[in-house]
């Protein structure tokens, strides 16, 4: 067969794949709606930032100092007082039914101790059932108290503490979780879509009996593989672009780095995603198996990628496993390009592992493809 004939066949296959994907209203819906919902969920709902922390105040002190402290809490937008307690026994039921996240307990000698120039203990009780939220809430309390301390020492002419903390958050000055999450979503959603598109495509044809029909045409296994891989790749690039636009234009996440570097990363990442999808595809006989296989790959891939929890916190064995997770590398690229303004030079160490994963999975998929035709 001439090279021209091969191109005709290949283009026909890609054209057919797109028709099959886009003509069916249901599969069109699958390509558009779930990614949009996830984008909105992560953009608006998933955040580490706490707003309006409900807290209760148990103030046994009548002094001016305690009033000033209470005013500091009431004035902080992060806090919302929902109860004012009169007795210690009222604390337990409030925390138990999650009415408050924290209880600020000011002891009876608070103002007196401070006036006498000493320091006074301040008790904070937090609901530790969600450790993450409790830690963040506690941090907010700490910063309110710290500000109170500074003002108090200044206004009373006292000596300020020997060392004072001055924080500046680089890359994300207001520490907005959205800036952290949304670039990651580009990786996660494009992975989900390409995996689904590629992992189901061969299985669907096997189920419908069209796969044999395809195999008896002069199309070679390698051409079929390529014809199945490219649509997933193209759809991934298109979807990545749409999410990128929404992230920068709608959610206003700053994109500081090099766009070509980002797309190079996306292309390599999709290569490994398509490879994994085709690997599943060549093994799955039914669409159900394909779907299960895709999820079996995607869930660990997302969890181990550092999308939500840092890889550095994982046990060493698990950290070693993350090395074969392509999303791990792409997340680094995304965050570095978005927030740090990185370009190709910084990212080389992230590019090559994805290229290796992509090459290995594609070679393996094409080997399996040829040996599992029967």
């Amino acid at each position, binding site marked *: 067969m001439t090279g021209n004939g091969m191109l*005709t066949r290949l283009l026909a296959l890609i054209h057919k794949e797109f028709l099959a994907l886009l003509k069916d209203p249901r599969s069109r819906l699958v390509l558009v709606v779930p990614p949009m919902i996830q984008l909105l969920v992560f953009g608006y709902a998933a955040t580490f930032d706490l707003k309006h922390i409900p807290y209760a105040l148990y103030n046994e002190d009548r002094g001016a100092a305690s009033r000033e402290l209470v005013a500091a809490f009431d004035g902080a937008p992060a806090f919302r007082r929902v109860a004012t307690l009169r007795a210690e026994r009222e604390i337990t039921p409030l925390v138990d039914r999650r009415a408050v996240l924290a209880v600020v307990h000011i002891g009876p000698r608070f103002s007196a101790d401070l006036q006498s120039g000493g320091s006074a203990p301040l008790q904070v009780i937090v609901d530790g059932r969600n450790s993450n939220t409790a830690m963040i809430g506690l941090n907010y309390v700490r910063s309110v108290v710290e500000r109170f301390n500074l003002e108090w020492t200044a206004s009373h002419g006292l000596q300020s503490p020997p060392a004072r903390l001055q924080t500046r958050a680089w890359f994300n000055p207001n520490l907005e979780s959205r800036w952290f999450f949304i670039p990651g979503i580009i990786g996660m959603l494009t992975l989900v879509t390409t995996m689904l598109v590629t992992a189901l495509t061969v299985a669907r044809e096997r189920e419908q009996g069209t796969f044999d029909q395809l195999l008896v045409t002069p199309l070679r296994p390698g051409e079929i593989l390529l014809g199945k891989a490219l649509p997933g790749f193209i759809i991934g690039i298109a979807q990545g672009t749409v999410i990128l636009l929404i992230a920068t234009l709608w959610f206003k996440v700053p994109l500081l780095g090099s766009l070509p570097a980002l797309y190079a990363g996306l292309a390599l990442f999709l290569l490994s995603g398509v490879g994994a999808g085709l690997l599943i595809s060549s093994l799955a006989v039914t669409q159900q198996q394909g779907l299960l296989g895709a999820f079996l790959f995607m869930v660990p891939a997302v969890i181990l990628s550092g999308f939500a929890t840092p890889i550095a916190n994982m046990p060493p064995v698990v950290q070693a496993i993350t090395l074969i997770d392509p999303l791990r590398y792409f997340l680094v690229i995304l965050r570095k390009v978005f927030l740090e303004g990185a370009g190709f030079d910084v990212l080389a160490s992230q590019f090559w592992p994805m290229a290796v994963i992509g090459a290995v999975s594609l070679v393996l998929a094409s080997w399996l493809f040829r040996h599992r035709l029967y």
Partner: protein
Amino acid sequence: MNDAPILEATDLAKAFSAGGRRTRALDGVSFAIRPGAVTGLIGPDGAGKTTLMRLAAGLLVPDTGRIRALGLDSTGDSLAVQAALGYMPQRFGLYEDLTVQENLDLYADLQGLPKTARTERYQELMHMTGLAPFTRRLAGRLSGGMKQKLGLACTLVRPPRLLLLDEPTVGVDPVSRRELWSIVDRLVRDEGMSVLLSTAYLDEAERCQAVILLDRGKILDQGPPATISARMAGRTWAVSGPGRPREVQAGLAGQSGVVDALVQGDHVRLVMQTADDPARLAGLPGLEDARITAVPPRFEDGFIDLLRGRAGTASSPAQDSGLTEGLQRRAQPGDAPVIEVAGLRRRFGDFWAVDGISFEVRRGEIFGLLGANGAGKSTTFRMLCGLLPASAGTLRVAGLDLRHAASAARGRIGYMSQKFSLYGNLSVAQNLDFFASAYGLAGDARATRRQWALTEFELTPYAEQLSADLSLGYKQRLAMACALMHQPEILFLDEPTSGVDPLARREFWQRIYALARAGVTILVTTHFMEEAEYCDRLAIMAAGRILAMDEPAAIKAGARSPELPDPSMEDAFVRLAESAGEAERAA
């Protein structure tokens, strides 16, 4: 025989919606089935047979009308009806990972058969089905025929008064098919059971005491099969020579007054609209010097007559001219064989699916591979198409070795499978375009071929329709068109007409004949005994080997005996299978 009917339907209708279209599966069906008999429900796929069975078993609710089984309302009293009747669906729910015995136990538990009654009932059933030696075998490792028998045994664990069997003989080898029928006959005779059995095989109708002919949701006719074939008395003839039967047939098909003309080995079976005398028949084209003898009518003749009467068409004329455009490569006497197979073997694990077969097919020949499911014909077929590498032996297709030039060889083959493997969510035109391009056609060449396919297969009105929404007959046409887009020299047909109605099947074979005349080599696999008669030569396969290879008439002649002066293809098959079994036992 004046008992109350055991199953009675009045004005039954049921429609299904799929993809925005509403299909009337049953449309005003009324009948009454008398007890103590086998009633056949005959019709092609999509006629409404399964819907009717499921309505009778109370598994579906009719849109209008009512159906009563065993004096109970199937719809309102479905639980009572299901407890009293036995229903074996097309794919019976055997648990393939359980043994034969465990499957029986399971169904005995499900049907609440008391433990004390089991031993005796199991013995009866195992004896009846001949499965006694296999009780400890996994159901998944039984042959197709044995699975059906086990399914039947499970349905019969608690003897029902009414038994519904949905296509129990599809894909089953002829020997098992006969055994299944003798079990059914015995149930009716000895246990007084009533049986409603659906089938797409018209030759099975003659074994029933009564038949209901169903087509597209409507009853065409009902009554004893003999009365339906009796109408054809004096209208059926066997015509032989001069010339090959296929040429004689081509001359007869489509002539006025001809209902049906069918190649049957060495002669043509001719069915006329009216009773004629042989002298008048001689006036038909090509019959001046032919030998014409009267033959007794068959059930199928009556069915075809009814279908034609309904459709208002004469027999499908011979297809030629446009269909074979660009394919004219008539066979020459000195041609090398187009398909050469020698010592072909294929192993799966420790099992030889194909165990040393050899044959050659000449240009323009129609060669059939006949065998039951599991005989090895699909494996052979897949090796010929280059879908499966051979374990040993040589395989040459169109002069190309499949080991080295699989892609190039595939480019010269057209392939059509029984599932009509088309892309359901692409339109007719898109399917045509895709397959044309997959074979390397582009631009004008592709557009020309698309136009050719739409015209030749009368698909133009459906060009923009999704292929999933086509009727079975049109799907078959489209599948064939797709297989012919690149003008292949060789056409592989895998069970090409399974389930389509007899008229569509005839039309299909007319096209095949035309292609063969134009020099296309045709290889067809089938388990349809009838279809084997249409081939020029055929190989009968069982257990991975070729039992016999010859012209259909010669194969049938081999089974001739004093008791069986005019054996059918099925008789020949059963005889060959039996003697192969004996030889194996002797060895």
